[in-house]
């Protein structure tokens, strides 16, 4: 490719171990100036470790970093900023009740008096906004901005610190498709101005759309760096996983039976008395997957929480003709499980697992009252539980298959498999699934998707909530789009497209008509 000095960043022989785990093994990468470079890999492949080394959070055990051809040690994030590296994290680091301007200068004030730096920052901000289509009001409070705008503030922060190299970690996880498109336009604009961008993502589509080159990581090593134009999603997936992967879910047409779940005018208020679910009605039949599409935070979580017995609600919900209490007695998670509802929660770390518990203790989670887990009236049968866990681990290919290992020591995909195994093996009438493949590697995604379809084919009802539109499109038999606590409409996945769904997710189309 290009001669020395035209690389914005060059990493040579970077290695980093955490105890016995080799997170990065002899990584070499060269990013030409003025390009968008994708880094893709499964969870735990070492992408984040590598970027943390580049941003000075970790110290590499071995290897060198060259910035603009010059050997540049980066012992801390201050030196990274000085070297012209800016980082946009997955979780924004903004002060909610500060204005955009205040957030941008935070940590980069010129002196004890704010007025001068604020005035200077305003000028810089205005010209930056003009140049890169960032259009953010400098005086707006962060808490009033949409997620997409907040992300742009993060980008502005990096640019204000004169970053030449911008690293974005999973930037589209929280964005609507339209917002993501806008982000990529901004990134292209930055590239044209000579900035170098590193894009970390697990979404193959984004890599194909936005990058010039792409590096693939697998188990701590850099397996390939290729020109994006000369590769395909299938090839990248194979490089990531190390074997051929089916990207599309194979499933037979649904054969819906009787109505299993009927939801009428379901409303939920959060602890601040704000209505999050504003009258939602739908039904799911046996042998059917209803997918709920929507940008995170539009009421999907509350829908799952209300049906799963985690949040009080009003309205009317019937399961196989039986009324489900929505508040007070009989509305807790235990009653829901007894009624035949299993729940794979959206956030497995927060809800689905106790990370400090062993795998077998987690397999009993929610089902600790099950008769088969009791030795007698007093004691639990921990031995039976271990055996049951070993059996489920084998069936769901959880690795390593050790029931006594703490949940936190499994990879994300294997943690999710433990949750999925626990819930699906209860043979529920209705399965609630939230973000089934969030932070899960491609191999496990394929497996989990097949399990969900298998449950449907066994005549069960499935409510699927996901912010991944691809996942909704390929798994669902019917799609409901949620926006602002309401269902904007139902669509047949074969007769709609991402553009239409994207508009509905932004609250701009749809309403009412059923598919």
């Amino acid at each position: 490719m290009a001669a020395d000095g035209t690389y914005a960043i060059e990493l040579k022989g970077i290695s980093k171990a955490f105890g016995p785990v080799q997170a990065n093994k002899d990584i070499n990468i060269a990013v030409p100036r003025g390009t968008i470079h994708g880094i893709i890999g499964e969870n735990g492949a070492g992408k984040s470790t590598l970027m943390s080394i580049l941003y000075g959070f970790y110290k590499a055990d071995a290897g060198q970093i060259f910035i603009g051809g010059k050997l540049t040690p980066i012992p801390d994030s201050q030196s990274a900023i000085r070297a012209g590296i800016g980082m946009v994290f997955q979780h924004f680091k903004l002060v909610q009740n500060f204005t955009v301007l205040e957030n941008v200068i935070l940590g980069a004030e010129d002196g004890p008096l704010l007025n001068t730096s604020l005035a200077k920052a305003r000028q810089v901000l205005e010209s930056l906004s003009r140049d890169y289509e960032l259009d953010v009001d400098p005086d707006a409070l962060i808490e009033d901005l949409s997620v997409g705008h907040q992300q742009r503030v993060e980008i502005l922060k990096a640019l204000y610190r004169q970053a030449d190299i911008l690293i974005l970690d999973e930037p589209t996880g929280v964005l609507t498709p339209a917002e993501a498109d806008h982000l990529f336009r901004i990134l292209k604009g930055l590239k044209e101005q000579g900035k170098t961008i590193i894009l970390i993502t697990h979404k193959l589509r984004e890599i194909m759309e936005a990058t010039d080159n792409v590096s693939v990581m697998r188990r701590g090593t850099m397996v390939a760096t290729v020109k994006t134009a000369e590769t395909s999603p299938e090839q990248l997936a194979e490089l990531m996983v190390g074997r051929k992967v089916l990207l599309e879910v194979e499933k037979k047409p649904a054969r819906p039976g009787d109505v299993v779940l009927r939801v009428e005018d379901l409303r939920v208020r959060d602890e601040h008395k704000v209505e999050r679910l504003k009258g939602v009605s739908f039904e799911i039949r046996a042998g059917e997957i209803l997918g709920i599409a929507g940008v995170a935070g539009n009421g999907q979580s509350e829908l799952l929480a209300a049906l799963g017995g985690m949040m009080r609600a009003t309205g009317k919900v019937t399961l196989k003709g039986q009324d489900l209490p929505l508040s007070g007695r009989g509305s807790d998670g235990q009653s829901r499980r007894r009624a035949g509802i299993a729940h794979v929660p959206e956030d497995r770390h927060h809800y689905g697992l106790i990370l400090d518990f062993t795998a077998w203790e987690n397999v009993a989670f929610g089902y600790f009252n099950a008769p088969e887990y009791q030795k007698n009236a007093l004691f639990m049968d921990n031995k039976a539980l271990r055996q049951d866990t070993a059996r489920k681990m084998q069936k769901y290919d959880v690795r390593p298959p050790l029931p006594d290992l703490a949940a936190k020591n499994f990879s994300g995909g294997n943690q999710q498999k433990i949750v999925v195994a626990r819930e699906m093996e209860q043979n529920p009438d209705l399965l609630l699934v939230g973000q089934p493949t969030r932070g899960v590697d491609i191999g496990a995604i394929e497996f989990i998707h097949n399990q969900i379809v298998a449950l449907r084919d066994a005549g069960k009802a499935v409510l699927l909530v996901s912010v991944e539109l691809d996942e909704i499109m390929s798994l669902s038999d019917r799609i409901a789009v949620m926006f602002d606590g309401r269902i904007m409409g139902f669509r047949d996945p074969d007769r709609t497209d991402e553009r239409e769904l994207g508009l509905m997710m932004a609250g701009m189309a749809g309403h009412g008509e059923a598919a």
Partner: protein
Amino acid sequence: MDRLPRWADVVLVPFVSLLLAALISALVLLSIGQSPVQAFNVMVDGALGSAYGWGYTLYYTTSFIFTGLAVTMAFHAGLFNIGGEGQAQLGGLGVALVCLALPWPHWTLALVAATLGAALFGAAWAAIPAWLQAKRGSHIVITTIMFNYIAAALLVYLLVDVLRPAGQMDPASARFPAGANLPSLNEIPGLNLIFTKGVPANVTLFLALAMAVVVWAILWQTRLGYQIRAFGKSEPAARYAGINPVYIIMVSMLMSGALAGMMSINNVMGEAERLLQNSSEGAGFIGIAVALMGRNHPVGVVLAALLFGFLYQGGAELGLWTSIPIEMRIVVQGLVILFTGALDMMVRMMLTRIFGLFRSQKLGAA
């Protein structure tokens, strides 16, 4: 990221913490012109050098096992019960009321009844903060601390105005009937060959050890314990699983209060044989350090209680046999609590770093 091997976590961390506490104690002793070696000898000799010394050490140990278990039980539900002191004092009231109620024919009957009384009163005193936490979200740390003061004031009132027999000068209850006197270790056949002189350690020690087993079984072998631990680790996850938070907070705090209350069997019934003011003598607070040092596991609690029993008895001996001021004993105990409890993380991080260095050297050599 890097983690310690289990043996280092369980053995090495407390050991290093103790060593650091001993080191600083030695420096303090040197600075006031005393010999740390002599002080250490006096403590070991006085607390562990004779059956008589052990008789005192084990007496303190018994109290600390109860209060340590009380903190442990609540801790696993994610609740920090600072109210062991007050719950123990109320437990003492329960013991006194039971013992004074009947002319007990035999100590075994009295022990069973007094255990119930102590547990009931201790639990009742924990019930109010627990209810406020479960229903109103009032922080249990704050309320249990306040309830310690209320307990102390309540007992002063009861001992001065209600329980004090007419004509008695000090604020204390009447002496318990002889049938309610628990045998000391020197009065138990078999053990009396070892403990030849009268010692305060009594049969309550065995009750304490039995309670350690019971607490272990509840926490790790029953559904209730499973729910308590799950709730303590993650409240949102417990809600997902359908674990009732009010039930868990109430039950775990009631058990915690009952354990703290049972401590009073040891000192009120087993030693003083009447209810005195401030009967618990700070053992409720020591229980926090014991539980922290014992990693909130009953086995660890028993071992840590033994250590603190040694410190208590050894410290008392310091006051008797040396010119070291009595306050030094509190300094030493304070340093042990500081290092094993509060500064535990510091030692842990230090050791983790050292272990990490060793590991990377090994990797480099390989």
